[in-house]
């Protein structure tokens, strides 16, 4: 119970910074060693709530000291599985920051903690208190953890020894995450958390598709669904594969149908043009079709300029969202750029014709090497003219597509349609005014205006009798 601790526990301390002058001791961090690790084990392997300390305790540390620290939690429960380790581990950061006077930064082998003098003064004198508080929060938040124990290590040699083992675990986990794809799992997760604001949006989260807001990945969904299977994050049975490339699954379609109350009944997870995923409002990036080059551009929230189509992020973002399927614009989370299935129905990266420089830099590691230099940024193309020119100069794959289509057009006369699989509806009003210029036949008076400014305060229009 909270009252046992000599410190307060509240989310209000999340943003608390322990500055050098207020610091009693620094743990792990860039100038020392440390890590945090959560391991899933069998129920009978642990005694619930047990705490072990290897090395000196807080009370034995001198003011101003810097010490190594490793925090290892073992969790067990009927629903606990190794796939949840990373998710649980990440919460250590949140929970420890709830503790007043304790600052926790970063994760894994980068952790960095500070304990404030104030906290020591109020009676925080052992790691056991911190570990017990953390374990309590773990169990409260994630009731699938039926048993938990903690081992904290402050002995440098021991930390080094365990760190090398931990590194192997981190690597193995990363490996699994990287190689886990839609075809490897039977369930996806739906997230309806944002329905409190976006009443009709559902995010479908798969190993190849992060939520639009960027906050929920497949593992998060899995953990949350275990905590509360009827909660806002829930399992979706994948069902039959209908379109492997487009990412259409019977299970997803069923859910889409029931949760949108029949508004739409098909979703292709990796398609931009056909039955695209719906968008909420907090997507990090919006994709937009540029019919003139038959390609897709992407623009992120931080980009304040205008894209080659003359529009800003806000304007285009305003066209999508609200949990509706909008063809021509698509909101995504940045991490979706890193998915191997990234809009694969539409040609993946080969269809990408523009992206802001900063965003491109951020995801550059995941852009195929043969195309990376062919995708212009605002420095290369600021309008449609310069965009076309750049794409042609660099021989962007889309250029070949134009050629193919031209050929096709030439064969099937008369073809006058704009190239591309669809035409985007005219979304932006052009203040076009057609003033009928009569008197062209020479009758009546001819007025010639040149370099004139005509200001009409009020036009009175009358019905013809």
């Amino acid at each position, binding site marked *: 119970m909270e009252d046992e601790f000599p410190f307060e526990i509240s989310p209000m301390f999340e943003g608390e910074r322990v500055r050098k002058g207020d610091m009693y001791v620094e743990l792990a961090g860039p100038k020392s060693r440390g890590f945090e690790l959560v391991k899933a084990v069998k129920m009978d392997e642990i005694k619930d709530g047990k705490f072990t300390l290897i090395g000196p305790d807080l009370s034995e540390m001198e003011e101003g000291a810097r010490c190594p620290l490793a925090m290892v939690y073992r969790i067990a429960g009927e629903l606990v599985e190794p796939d949840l380790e990373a998710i649980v581990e990440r919460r250590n950061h949140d929970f420890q920051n709830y503790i007043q006077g304790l600052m926790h930064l970063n994760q894994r082998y980068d952790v960095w903690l500070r304990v404030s003098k104030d906290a020591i003064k109020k009676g925080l004198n052992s790691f056991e208190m911190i570990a017990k508080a953390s374990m309590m929060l773990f169990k*409260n938040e994630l009731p699938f953890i039926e048993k938990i124990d903690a081992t904290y290590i402050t002995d440098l040699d021991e930390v080094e020894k365990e760190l090398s083992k931990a590194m192997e675990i981190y690597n193995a986990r990363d490996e699994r995450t990287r190689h886990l794809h839609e075809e490897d799992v039977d369930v996806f997760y739906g997230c309806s958390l944002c329905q409190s*604001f976006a009443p009709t949006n559902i995010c479908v989260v798969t190993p190849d598709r992060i939520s639009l807001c960027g906050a929920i990945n497949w593992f998060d969904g899995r953990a949350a669904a275990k905590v509360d299977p009827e909660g806002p994050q829930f399992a979706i049975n994948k069902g039959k594969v209908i379109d492997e490339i487009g990412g259409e699954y019977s299970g997803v379609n069923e859910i889409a149908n029931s949760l949108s109350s029949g508004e739409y009944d098909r979703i292709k997870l990796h398609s931009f043009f056909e039955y695209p995923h719906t968008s909420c409002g907090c997507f990090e990036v919006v994709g937009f079709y540029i019919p003139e080059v038959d390609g897709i551009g992407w623009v992120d929230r931080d980009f304040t300029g205008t894209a080659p189509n003359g529009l800003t992020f806000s304007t285009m973002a305003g066209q999508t969202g609200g949990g*509706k399927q909008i063809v021509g614009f698509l909101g995504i989370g940045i991490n979706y750029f890193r998915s191997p299935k990234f809009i694969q129905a539409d040609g993946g990266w080969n269809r990408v014709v523009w992206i802001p420089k900063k965003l491109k830099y951020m995801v550059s590691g995941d852009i195929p090497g043969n195309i990376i230099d062919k995708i212009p940024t605002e420095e290369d193309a600021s309008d449609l003219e310069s965009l076309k020119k750049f794409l042609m100069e660099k021989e962007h794959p889309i250029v070949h597509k134009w050629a193919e289509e031209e050929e096709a057009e030439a064969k099937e006369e008369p073809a006058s349609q704009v190239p591309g699989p669809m035409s985007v509806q005219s979304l932006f009003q052009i*203040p076009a005014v057609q003033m009928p210029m009569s008197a062209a036949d020479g009758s009546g008076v001819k007025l010639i205006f040149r370099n004139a400014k*005509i*200001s009409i305060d009020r*036009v009175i229009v009358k019905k013809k009798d």
Partner: protein
Amino acid sequence: MSKLTTGSFSIEELENVQIRIGSIVGVIENKIEEQREIGPTPKPGIVDLRDWDYKLLDRYEPVYTPMCDQCCYCTFGKCDLSGNKEGACGIDMKAHQAREFLLRVITGAAAHAGHGRHLLHYLIKKYGHDHPIDVGPSNLKMPVTQTVTGYRPETLGDLEQVLDYVEEQLTQLLATIHMGQEGAAIDFESKALHGGMIDHVGMEVSDVAQISCLGMPKSDAKAPLAEIGMGCIDSTKPVLLCIGHNVAAVTYIIDYMEEHDFSDKIELCGLCCTAIDMTRYQMDSGGKPSAKIVGSLAKELKMIRSGIPDAIVVDEQCVRADVLREAQKLSIPVITTNDKIMYGLPNRSKDSVDDILKDLVSGKEAGALVLDFNIVGELAPRLAWEMAPIRKKKGITALPDDEEFKELTSKCIQCLACELVCPTNLPISKAMKATSEGDLVPFERLHDKCIGCGRCEQACPKGIPILNVIEKASQKVIREEKGMMRSGRGQISDPEIREEGVNLVLGTTPGVVAMVGCSNYPDGTKDLYTVANEMLKRNYIVVMSGCSAMDLGMYKNDEGKTLYEQYPAKFLKGNLINVGSCVANAHITATAIKVAAIFAKRNVTANFEEIADYVLNRVGAVGVAWGAYSQKASSIGTGCNRLGIPVIVGPHGSKYRRALIGKPYNKDKWTVHDARNGEVMPIAPAPEFLLTTAETIEELMPMLAKSCIRPSDNNMGRMIKLTHYIELSQKYLGVMPDDWHIFVRGETDLPLSKREELLNILETGHGWEIDWKRKKILSGPSMKLDVSAQPTNIQRLCKEA
């Protein structure tokens, strides 16, 4: 011709010919008809949103505690309405109180709309009808205007029709004040809500017009910091003081000073919202504001009495009625620049600068009414420049010298008459006594609480100029009155709202607290600081505007930093925002509208009711007007109310003697429809009220947290909101709130660190069934947690079952 629209265009056949059509009158319906998705209520009149008002007023019942039992509106009376009596016209107490409140609201709304009209006239003249509206990265340029009227203004000229609408509505509302008409209090209430909504349209027009034309920051999280406080005024230079709320004239002064190399030589400073807008002028591309802020209304008389200003320029709204009288005593010439304040001065608008200057410098005239800004721009700085040496030579100040000071304080006979009339009952007599014994500290403390109204002086039988004594005694602390305020940033941009969306959804941002209104109250700066700091630490977004924004910049922490220097200014969790002067309050309601447009893609055009319904049920925002409540603040608050945003007023706000309070025990009032199928579902009483009073900041803090709870909260949002509600109640009131459990729909709503303890209370104290192994609530809550439910108060928005 059906495509004829207003605006500018060219015609291909005509070489370099620009045609502009101002307005179209006749059989072609206006622009809005052509646009897509028009909601049901374009340009609503008094009756059009009445159903929505009735829904609100049914749940949030008006409560009146009249200040005065009589009606003195006409010569039938005055009529005693006490004891359920009717007046000569048949009106009863309730209706009359509601009418009184309506009058307050439309007075405030008219002040902003009048301001907007004045500003627009001048801006159109200077920048033209076609000057584009630019508010920064936003898809909805004017969310409030579009939601209410259906217009989507693109240019300055487009704003005229919006104000036409506002003015028409205000006229209609004012007409209903007339004796012997409306008999139902509820319809006066509905009209007041209408007036409040109209006010936000007028405010939006005012601020958007000036942002677009005057180079003010456009949704800029990095708007510069400006100096604030009497202590930062350099009185060795000639000092030019501007007072009011309409910056139009002052921009000419700033321009003139820059062009004529006066900027470094004359100290330009301001009081009230004009001061805020002076620091926004031409700051959209960075830089440091040259003008300084003295403070809010409470500093007006104090600043004049100090004798520091060498010339004063006033415009409109919260400007003391005695500025000319007070200034005249100290040989400070006053220029009035707006027909709302003329002080009986001769109109010199057509005279030459030199002529006016001569009359003012010589003291022949105490001031001048000059409505031509070109003249004001040149006259004011030159006047300060010439007056400074003259006034310095004479050594003019109202403050007594040391000798006089001693004499004055010893004259006090401790009759307490001053304390009786002091609006905050400050211990003046005690301080007088202490001072005569050589202890200045009581007066220094009192100075901080004194709102500078000057009522004490008139009550003093010994004729002691008490305010002067307070100021003289506090010279040391006044010199230290230096702070920083973030200059007003304008709207909240779309990308910011999208970015913040994740936090709102995941509960990392528990809510939005808007601290608005006037700051005319004792300990105001410290109270604002305490509340804002607490809520910021808890990751609430704190939004400031107007006088509150100024006052917040006056209080510093141990390291000498104001909150503006401690917290970033994006629309993100734990950020502190100043939207701008009082007309910028429209950006706060606009943000709630944008949330509906962005996340739910609701059509906002002419669709007020649906948007307000969304805000009431989903957007956890609350307004606070902590200080004395001016008419403008009452219209701002009422506009928030109609949009579904609750407002808490401080002790002074209770003087309007009206509240809109829900009764949590009336279960049948706390239901909504589920828009998915129209089913009626119970909700927690949230928000519990639309307008209520808090006596102390200790009482206020948990109320703020509770006021951010909404029916649609998902479990993460509800958990964090409940966490802060419980914690703030424990921290400031020392107890668990007695109603926390009624907001619990399931175990995942429970605060994380207290989950077991709370489950225990639910089981033993409230008889709920708990599965302790799974830590699950089996029975007890009166409603279900279903994030997909779509709460609405409007049946027509429901799908058929």
